[in-house]
Every structure is written in C-alpha cells, then in structure tokens.
C-alpha cells in the first residue's frame, strides 16, 4: 500500500493532527447516526476505533514502519483510552457490556452457536499463538547508532591540524574576499519548495552565471565535486537517496533534513567528511559505514568547497558557536 505512506520527513505533529481529525470524524459520524436512529453500539464502535488506529493507521500509514513492539505499546494505550470512553458513566458501561453479557447468557439460537464457537476457538487460538511465539524466530536485531557523535578537539588532514573550535571555512567570503557568513547566507537557495536559487539572472545568486566569482563560483566548484563523488549515495537532491542508498546500512545522511548539517557546525562537517565512516568513534559504528574518508580522495580545499555547496543547495546555514 505505497500510496498510503506519509510524505518524506513526516512530523509527529502531522500524525497526531491526522489522528485527531479521524477521531473527530468518527465522533461526528457516530453522532449523526445516533440522530438518525441507527447509532452504532458502543461495543462495536470501540472495537472499530481501536482497529482503525492500530491495525490500519499506525501499521500502514506511517513510513518508515513503526516496529511491532512500539505498536504494541500504542495498542495498549489506545485500548485504555477506549475503555475510559466506553465506561464514562454507569449507563454507557452497561451498554458496552450488553453484547458480551448476551453472548455469555446465550438466550437464543444465534448467541448459543456464537458462545460455543468462541469457547472452542479462543483456547485453540491462544494455543496456536503460544506455539508460534515459542518457535525460534530471528528478527533483525535493533542496533542503536549515534548519528552525530562528539567531535574531537582537533583533526589532522593532509598534514595540517585543524582546531574545530576556531577553524574557518576559507571560501565563505564576500565580494571583498573577507570571511562573511552574512553575505553567503544571503545568497543560498530559497527555503521554500524546491529550494531553488534566488535569481537565475544574477551573478551573485547563480553559480553557473559566466560572471560568477568569489563565493558563488566556489559553490559551483563544490557542486562539481559533489556530483562527481557524493551523489552516488547522498543523491542528486542531497536527500540521502542516491543510486546505492538502498544497498548500504547505515543509510546515507539526508542533508535536506533539518537534523543533519543544519544543526552542525561547519567544522564538524569538515571533520566528518575528511575522516569518513572509518574515522567515527565506536558509538557511530565505524565498521559499518561506507562513507569514504575523503582525505583519501579530495584536497582540503575541495572538502571545504563541497561543504559550502551542501549548505548552499539545501538552503541551511551552518550552526555557529554563539
């Protein structure tokens, strides 16, 4: 059911508001049906709501899928909620119990058959469930990896030591050639849909303008490096969905996500790019990452340029120390 999936980068707020809208919709339906004299019994309404939330919404609507154990917690919580709803008053509770009691009492032919069937099927079902859960099963183990581990104080790249606190992006300069984050931040792409460059006809905004120089020219050079080296995994749109993203685990970082480069200092990114997967501390699973230590492939200048391109293309500012 791929058409059901949430759009990339869904937010918990979106999920909660969607669920709230659904519940509101149910309540309105319930109210209208009651008005029309064909109200749904509390018992069935409760089961319907529970099934909708747990068997449908959380299972199919959310992507990437939530693990079963987490859904089990949601299932329990929503069951408690529904229980509170159906037992709000003595009257409602009686109404909720009524179908259960009537099956237990088995006063007519139908409930007799139903009671016998339930009495037989429930133990059989429980036995089968117990048996299958005792079978040895081998799910993928859950291994929690630290995505942004603590950086070292210094990093040595191509023979030169960089202090992460004080190192500066050498290409983040204004028209006079001075380090100027405010100037470069003014010429990144728009943060709206598409993240497009501000003005294709301006040599200050368009890296491909023949008259582009300084900062924006370096952005183009960084982009060239990106599209010769990085896009295979990080993707043509820097969203971590490159040609081989499907083959690797951990999956490549999504730079368009507000949780990656947008919340990192540029020097942290410099350290990560230069040292790659193999240079991660243990909590980052250096053994599993295929991220190259780019110092083996690129010069220091090229690394700075490609980082600047990543910020330009995603429309994010690097985090600063203050």
């Amino acid at each position: 059911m791929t058409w059901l999936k949430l759009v990339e980068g869904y937010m918990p707020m979106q999920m909660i508001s969607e669920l709230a809208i659904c519940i509101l919709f149910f309540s309105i339906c319930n109210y209208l049906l009651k008005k029309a004299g064909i109200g749904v019994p509390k018992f069935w309404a409760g089961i319907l709501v529970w099934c909708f939330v747990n068997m449908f919404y959380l299972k199919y609507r959310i992507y990437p899928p939530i693990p079963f154990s987490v859904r089990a917690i949601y299932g329990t919580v929503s069951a408690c909620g529904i229980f509170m709803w159906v037992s709000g008053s003595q009257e409602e509770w009686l109404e909720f119990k009524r179908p259960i009691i009537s099956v237990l009492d088995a006063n007519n032919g139908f409930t007799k058959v139903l009671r016998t069937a339930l009495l037989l099927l429930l133990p059989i079902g429980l036995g089968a469930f117990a048996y299958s859960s005792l079978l040895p099963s081998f799910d993928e183990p859950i291994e929690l990896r630290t995505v942004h581990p603590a950086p070292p104080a210094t990093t040595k790249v191509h023979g030169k030591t960089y202090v992460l606190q004080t190192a500066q992006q050498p290409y983040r300069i204004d028209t006079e050639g001075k380090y100027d984050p405010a100037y470069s931040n003014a010429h990144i792409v728009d943060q709206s849909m598409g993240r497009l460059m501000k003005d294709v006809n301006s040599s200050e905004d368009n890296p491909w303008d023949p008259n582009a120089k300084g900062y924006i020219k370096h952005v183009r050079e960084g982009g060239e490096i990106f599209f010769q080296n990085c896009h295979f995994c990080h993707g043509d749109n820097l969203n971590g969905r490159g040609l081989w993203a499907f083959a690797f685990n951990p999956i490549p970082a999504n730079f368009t996500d507000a949780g990656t480069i947008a919340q990192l200092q540029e020097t942290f990114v410099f350290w990560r790019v230069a040292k790659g997967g193999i240079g991660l501390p243990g909590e980052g699973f250096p053994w599993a990452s295929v991220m190259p230590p780019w110092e083996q492939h690129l010069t220091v200048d090229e690394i700075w340029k490609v980082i600047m391109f990543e910020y330009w293309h995603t429309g994010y500012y690097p985090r600063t120390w203050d």
Partner: protein
Amino acid sequence: MTMKSTHTAYSGTTRELMNRQQQTQNRRPSLMASLLAAGVLIAGMGLSSPVLAQEAEGFITEKLPAPFPAEKIEAGKRVYFTKCVWCHGVNGSGDGPGADRLWPRPRNFNAGTFKIRHTASGELPLIDVDLLQTVTHGLPGSAMPSWEGILNEDQRKDVLAFVTSELVQDRSWQDDEFEELHVLELEKLAKTAVPPSAESIKRGAELVVENKCIECHGVEGRGDGNAFNLKDDWGFSIQPADWHKCWNFRGSRQDAYNVKNIFRTFSTGINGTPMPSFADNTTVEDRWHIANYVNHLCERDSDVDIAGGEVTDEIAAKLLAAKPRGIDPMTDKPKVNFVIPSKFAEGELPTDEHDPRWYDERWKKEGRRLVAMGGQITHKPRNFVSRIDDIWVQSMYNETDVTMMFRWDDRTHSVQEGEVDWDPYEVNLKDYGIVEQEPGGSKFDDDGTHPNSIASKQTSYQVFNDGLAFQMPIKYQELPAPRKPRYFWGDEGFPVDIAKWTADGNLMAYQGQGWDQDLEDRDDFTEKLKLVKAEWKNGRWTVIISRPLKADYETDTYIELGKYIPINFFVWDGHNGDVGRKMVVSAFYYLVLEPPVPAEAKWYAGLAAVGLVIVEGWILTRRSNRRKELGHS
C-alpha cells in the same frame, strides 16, 4: 540550427536505418554528420511523413502542443540551473560535471531523443505526460531520481518548458511541417488487456522468440543476449534490460510490477537505442501476451526455473502463481531483510540448485534473501558502476557443514585470459594500473563523443574474473555487541574469515585485517572449503559453496546454531574491469543457523489453551450464579 531541415520522417524504419547507419561507423565524426546523411537518404527516398506509425494498431494522432509562455520558460531555467545542470550540463548536452562518472550517461537533450514515451517510435515525447512522468518518478537503474516531493508539480512543468524550448535544439514541438504525434492509447487499450494467465504467459514466451527479443535480452530475459555490443545514438555503450529486475526498468514509473509499463515500452520502443517499436509487426493482443510474460519473469517470492525460455504449462503456472516482492517506497527497490536464515537439512547437503529442499515448505514464509549491492566507493579505486546490483542468497546446514547458494544475474561470463602481474592475495593494485575513473565533466574537453567518460569505456576494460566473496568475523563470539570487524576486510585487531571464489574455478580462504592489507592465505581452511557448483548459464551465476561449521576457533569463523553471525558480500564483474578493490559490496547481514523447534513448545501451547478453558469455565459459572441471584431478587 542548420540541422532542422534534415529532420524529416521518424517512422520506425527510418529511425532504425539511422541507428544502423550510426552503429556501422566505428569512429563517428559527429552525430550531426550521421543525421545529415540519414536526412539526405530519406529525402532521396521521397518520404515525408510517418507511415508506419499511422497504421499501427492502438495509436491516435494528437495535435502538437502550443509553445510555452516566456515566463514559464524563465521559471524553468531557475529550476534547471539549481537541480539539473550538474548532470545534464549548461547546454543540456548531457555533459555536466557529474556525467563522466555516470553510466548510463545523462540524457543529451539537444537532439530531442527521449526514451520513455507514449508516442510512436522516433517521435518527440508528450511533454505533459511522458517527460513529466520521467521527472516525477525518475529513471530507476540510472542516477535520475524521482523529483516528486522535492519539486512541486508547477516547478516540474516549468523545468520541462525550459528543457523542451531551449535545450532541445535539433527538433521542435512547434515544427508542424516535420513533427507529428501518434499517441499510444494506453489507458483505453488497458481496459481490454489480456489478463495474465498461464496460456498468455506461455504464448508470450513463444512470441519473444518469434520477435527476436531474446537476441538482445537473452533466452531467459536476463539481458545477456547481445550485452556487450550495443550502443546508443551517441555511441555510448548501453545494455539490454534484465526482465528479472522490473524495478530497474527505466519506464517502471515507481510501479514495478505494472504490466502497462512493459506494454507501453514494447509498443513505442526506446528512442536513441536499438530497442525498436513492435507496434507495426505485432497485434495488440500479442503485445499483451509478451507484456504478461515479461512482467511475470520479474523476480517474485519463489525462484521459478524457466528452463532457457522453454516455458511449459507447468512453468507458466508457476510463474503465474508467484507473488510480487514488496517494494520499499523509500528506495523503489525490493525490501531487504538483513537476516539470512540457514535451515537444517537431513543427510547430505544439496549438490545443485535443483535440490527440492531449496524450495520446500520451510522457505514459503521467508524465502531466499535478496542482498543489495552497491559500488565500492570508500577507498581507491572506487567503482562507479554497479552492473551487478543484487544477489540472492539461500543457506542450509547439517551436523557438520553449512552450504550457501548464491545466484545473481550477470550479463557477461567473464574469465580472465592470460596471466596478471599480481598475486591473488594482493589488494593494492594501483601500481599495476588498476585505477578509478577520472571525474572529467566540465573540467575537460568539449569532444562530443566523450572518449574518456565511463560510458565510453564500458566495453574497453581488460576482462578479469567474475568473483564472489563473503566475510565473517573470526571469534565473533567474543565481540562486544554491536562491534564488528570493518565491513571491508576487517580491521586491526578484528580479523575476518574471507572465502573468495573466482570464475577461473578457485575457491580460497583468506584472512583479512584491513582494506589496504594484503589478504593472508589460510591454506588449511582452503582445503576444507568446497565449491559444490559454479555455473554461468543464460545470464546468471549459480555458485554453491559449503564449509565446515566447526574449524579452528582461533583462525576461522566457528559457526554455532542460533547465533547472529555478521556476514557481508563482495561481487566482481570481470567485464566491468572489477578486480582487487574495484567491485560491488553489500552492507552487513546476519547469517543465522535456525535451531530445530524445541519439544517444549507443544507442551506450553497446550498448557496455555487448557488454562484458558479453565478461565472460561470460571467466567461462565460466575455469570450463571449471578443470573440466579438476579433471578431470585
């Protein structure tokens, strides 16, 4: 453009003529010159309008679209220079900075040749349908991603306005003198599509032979027919589609198992490639049969042996019954499970792929595992082309040994000819000339044939051995979870047990201690490894390797039941020039030897059921007592 007047008819035959003419020129002076030649030829024949396309069944004539307003083109330019220019280049010639390391090479828009269309062979595509779908869904198997969710629909349409108005230079959608659009009525035809059935699949299997599809696509459709000699209009090497991987079909539109996509491609052909349109020589009904067959060849939950394309009723029924694999919406590839189960086998382990124990009931639920492979891009020499992008793995064990069956599609059977200067255990081959592709792109020359690009070099590599290796940690029992030896041949203090098979028939055990450390021979264990089978047939390798469970604890992986043993895989494609560190590699998977079902399971299940019966009795008794009470009061 001076070329405009030479573009006349684009019927199937003239287009093929152009293709053929271009292919016979081994060193093409330029695309323009050959087009000119074709144009003169056509003019001489007195043809002026498409003939075949009009007659073909299922097509209708559509009007040419109106030109785009200038502001839409301008808006599209902004999209283009932010997103597209990096591969497609400033002039849209498919020569952006990324192009030289890409295969397939990015599209050169200038000639107006587009692959996936609803329009007749040789014609321009429908901008608002074909090109929009390409931008929206991407072209899987290439670097072109899906832009849906990144660019909104207006932005996608804007960029098409720019590309079709400014970058397509040799032809024009407004050129009513020479251009016509004959559009496949796919939605209408789909309503009367031949539903998939065993008969239809079997008929399709016959038709792909009659229509000579198998000459390029291979008798089992794995793309191995004429895999190495095909070129596109620009002289770049291309390869026929592998019908077993529908998720890699360029025209799959993020809907891999949809038969309509195959019907469309088969009806309209793929412009710029040797794939012709079959609209004029097959009936609509026959095309549905072929589409049904090709669609059902795409890998599903069971591995159906199609016996070299000799599809019997029994095979057709099996193909029909198989269920599509789940496609991961994040990647548009089949879902991957990182646990590779190994099942217990009574007696001797299987000796070939036909052993019924590979197909028995126990595999119904989980089946064989797909292991996704990506180019090795961590260390030099990096591999930017993954001609092999997945392998299938299945495993069984008995009291003494474990066996693994690997099957993967490889269009070319590669066995190294002659000697090489290095030893098999050597991994640093730079000094022997094994280097990675230069970045090229806008840094280099303007030669339109791009002789130094990876797309041009595809057929010129020295051929090495196809190969496969898997590594498992030595003494994994002592590794504090989740620590593993590095995926790339281990690391210092964390050695790995590597078994490497090469197509020359060697199966060797090595110890790896780092990506740049020469492998260490483990001769004792090499003798214990057994190459049960290694066969390349109809575009697919079947390699079965078995090894003892227990070996020297200190130097070999000592396999125990029920343990998660990290394992990852490496595959070399000899015709891609793969050797040493140039190969494709997988992420970490886990090999688990599934222990037999514990006897207590039945008892506990029975106990639970009996317990519930007692609870039921208690509830019923209570209820009946309560009813009596109520009745009395």
